[in-house]
């Protein structure tokens, strides 16, 4: 870990073995005036068009969602990152993340928005030929047409490539005839354009097709009854000899799975952005309620039990957000670098995003689980009113849950996190072996207790985070060594490793965010952020220790186990710290501001 190397942004997955310089990351406190204005437009759009209509949206009032999408289109919100030549605004990835975040508090509308601008638009934008793009993208970017994406089938969810949908060329060679059944299709009820995945004949891999809603042979089932996001249109789509012109084949034959996977990488980090936006909104509601609701003669925000919850909600959200924008910036920079090296812009975008697929998966899991925590405690803070369908927590609670399921379940994403990391190591893209051996060597040696202890503002947390990396390298190294090819089947171990990686990435992102922020604003202006960081990293150490122990206990034994457990404790050791006081400080700020304010 060479400090001079760390100035340059690290590659995807390298956070495990390298250090990152705080100044190299992007933090949300750096939004420029134009970006803040765009964010305000999103907030005003929700306040004016969505929040007052949430009940009508959830009742799926005829035509309402399509109309709201058009309203968003009128404001330009559906074309943020679409190139200007296709009727969009050509904004960078971070700005589109910001829009996703701000609209993330829009419940079912957010789902429709994300599906339309993500999986509904991007496959055509990224893989379409010029004619396809000219035909579809301007109308999708303006909201005149609405997009949907048909991948999942009744028998093919997480295992998407196993779908039964088939396409065959018509006798005159002018059409593909698609047959099959797709389910959980978001926006199906009002979409004009579907990106449909099916295998041509007996191909091994999926192909993708652009299917317009009026084509012969396409039909919709009725709306699904769902636990949450009730206003989001979710239907089955049936294809019965659906005649798709041959020119509507997207990209090349058998390229569909690649498209699906690449689009998902983007979808995952975007989902992180959206859920963090929802979290902030729910926290603000909870704070306002706690400030208003009085029991025993005082607002409940005066009580420690409630303050704890408010602080924890904010701490997790702030941490998750740090990771989201760090990775967004990395993706953007990687893309820019590839473009500079001569790559076509869209290819560069896909490649740049794919480089940070590990981070995207981590973010998807962490942000969606943060929202679930936030809404759960939101209900609790509201008490009896939390359980009432007349108060906003009811909808927030139900709508949150899907986020751990779609865009790849959190279990799939956890496995992917470890799987991608190990694959990159095996391909030689990521040097895990060297650092892992070094850690193994350190285990055998006498711990270095001496040395000059740095006492900078962040030295403790930096030391802890360096320890987290060692802990993961040790446990993962041992797992690979012990379980070898069996590791893929030991899903519990994979979950443990993923949890450790998630905690590491988020802790480090948070620490870097606060370090950069202090550099800009000074320590005095960042007291609560420092407390947020200290609490989160302290707690992350405990969680990493627990996951590591579980993993080690499952496959190691005897002296080796004892030695590794000792190492694990050493690598996750933290100094005693009064988390209660730190959380009180965080809560006090939230309560004074009467809203989420970090």
């Amino acid at each position: 870990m060479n400090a001079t190397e760390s100035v340059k942004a690290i590659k995807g997955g390298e956070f495990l073995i390298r250090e990152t310089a705080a100044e190299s990351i992007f933090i949300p406190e750096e939004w420029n005036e134009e970006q803040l204005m765009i964010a305000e437009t999103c907030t005003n759009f929700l306040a004016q068009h969505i929040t007052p209509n949430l009940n009508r949206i959830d009742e799926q009032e005829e035509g309402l969602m399509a109309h709201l999408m058009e309203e968003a289109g009128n404001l330009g919100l559906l074309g943020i990152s679409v190139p200007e030549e296709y009727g969009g605004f050509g904004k960078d990835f971070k700005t589109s993340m910001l829009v996703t975040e701000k609209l993330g508090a829009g419940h079912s509308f957010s789902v429709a928005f994300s599906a339309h601008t993500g999986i509904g638009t991007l496959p055509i934008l990224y893989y379409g030929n010029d004619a396809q793009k000219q035909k579809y993208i301007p109308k999708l970017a303006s909201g005149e047409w609405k997009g949907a994406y048909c991948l999942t089938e009744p028998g093919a969810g997480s295992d998407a490539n196993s779908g039964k949908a088939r396409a065959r060329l018509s006798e005159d060679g002018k059409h593909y005839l698609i047959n099959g059944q797709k389910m959980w299709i978001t926006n199906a009820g009002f979409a004009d354009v579907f990106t449909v995945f099916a295998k041509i004949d007996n191909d091994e891999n999926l192909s993708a097709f652009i299917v317009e809603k009026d084509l012969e042979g396409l039909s919709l089932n009725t709306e699904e009854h769902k636990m949450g996001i009730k206003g989001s249109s979710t239907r089955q789509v049936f294809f019965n000899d659906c005649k798709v012109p041959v020119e509507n084949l997207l990209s090349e034959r058998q390229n569909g799975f690649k498209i699906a996977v690449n689009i998902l990488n983007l979808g995952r980090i975007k989902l992180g952005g959206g859920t963090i936006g929802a979290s902030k909104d729910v926290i603000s509601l909870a704070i306002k309620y706690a400030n208003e609701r009085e029991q025993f003669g005082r607002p409940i925000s005066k009580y420690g039990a409630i303050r704890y919850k408010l602080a924890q909600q904010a701490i997790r959200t702030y941490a998750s957000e740090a990771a989201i924008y760090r990775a967004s910036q990395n993706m953007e920079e990687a893309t820019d670098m590839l473009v500079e090296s001569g790559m076509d812009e869209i290819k560069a975008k896909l490649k740049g995003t794919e480089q940070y697929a590990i981070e995207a998966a981590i973010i998807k899991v962490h942000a969606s689980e943060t929202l679930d925590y936030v809404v759960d405690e939101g209900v609790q803070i509201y008490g009896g009113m939390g359980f009432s369908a007349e108060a906003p927590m009811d909808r927030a609670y139900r709508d949150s849950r899907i986020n751990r399921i779609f865009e790849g379940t959190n279990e799939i994403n956890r496995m992917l996190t470890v799987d991608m990391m190990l694959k990159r190591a095996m391909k030689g893209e990521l040097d895990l072996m060297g650092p892992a051996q070094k850690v193994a060597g350190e285990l055998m040696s006498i711990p270095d207790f001496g040395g000059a202890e740095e006492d900078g503002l962040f030295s403790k947390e930096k030391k802890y985070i360096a320890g987290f990396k060692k802990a993961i390298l040790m446990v993962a190294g041992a797992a690979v060594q012990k379980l070898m090819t069996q590791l893929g089947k030991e899903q519990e171990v994979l979950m443990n490793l993923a949890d450790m990686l998630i905690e590491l990435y988020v802790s480090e992102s948070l620490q870097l965010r606060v370090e950069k922020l202090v550099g800009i604003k000074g320590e005095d202006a960042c007291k609560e952020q420092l407390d947020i960081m200290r609490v989160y990293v302290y707690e992350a150490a405990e969680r990493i220790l627990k996951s590591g122990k579980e993993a080690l206990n499952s496959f190691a034994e005897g002296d080796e186990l004892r030695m590794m457990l000792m190492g694990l404790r050493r690598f996750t050791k933290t100094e005693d710290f009064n988390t209660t006081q730190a959380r009180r400080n965080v809560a006090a700020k939230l309560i004074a501001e009467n809203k989420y304010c970090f």
Partner: protein
Amino acid sequence: MSVLVLVEHTEGIIKKKNFEAVQYASQIAKQTGTTATAVVLGSASAAEMESLGEYGAEKVLHIADPRLDELHARAYAKALIAAAEKEGSTVIITLNDINGRAVAPRVAVKLKAGLVAGALSYPDTAEGFLIKKTVFSGKAFAFVNVLSDVKVITLMPNSFQINKGEGKATVEKLDVNFDEKDFGIKVKQVNKVTGEVSLADAELVVSGGRGMKGPENWGLIEDLAKELGAATACSRPVADSHWRPHHEHVGQTGGTIRPNLYIAAGISGAIQHLAGVNGSKIIVVINKDPEAPFFKAANYGVIGDAMEVLPKLTAAVKKYKASHK
């Protein structure tokens, strides 16, 4: 040196709030060892003008030009300035109402005078000329120090109790030469809302919010208002949903009112709404949610569904009126 006060009339009748302004002027006059002079514009009867003496005016300057029966702010300003010159006045007062707000700033600019818009207090002259006024739509008060020799004040109506006394003002005519351009604004059409109490002047106001569920339930608000002789008002979401006309919206971005009694039915009491009504002397809040923040700003509270409580309150008022005839 007298303190000058503009007195408005509607078709010759002087409304009560003007008495408050005259009384305010005469108090300042006493404070500064001088007298109060009222300025009346247009067609007003001698008796009506003389009666201003009951509120402390020594003298009335009457500029009888009938064109002044309607607001022509430039002419009004010119008349006030002419009166001020005649009287050597250094303090000039109007009401902080629609007309006063169109006239006083012109007078202030012409005389290079500092202006306090919406005065709530008498000037504190211990160190300067300090007057209290509302800022942030009632979320706070400010003390404005007027630095110039001449001071212009617009008085917030309903700030002081009016005490009618004895006395008769002497009426003196004053001629002012107006230009054509002083009457540049032509009134084409006037639509007075008849039968209803105007919100800005109302002493009693009944107001409804989202808790009223829909415009079809506004009869309940109107019934109570009618029984009380009150004006009706509403919260912003109600006006935004077009349940009620926009001019009824009170709050930080709607009208600011200061009635003696404000009855809020089904209004939760967002900070923006409170800003527009917290100058009310007495606030009654009816809301089924005991956590509604409005209860914290209220004098009297009724925890219950506005739709059920309002008819009961209307009935109780009816009963009270019958027994107090």
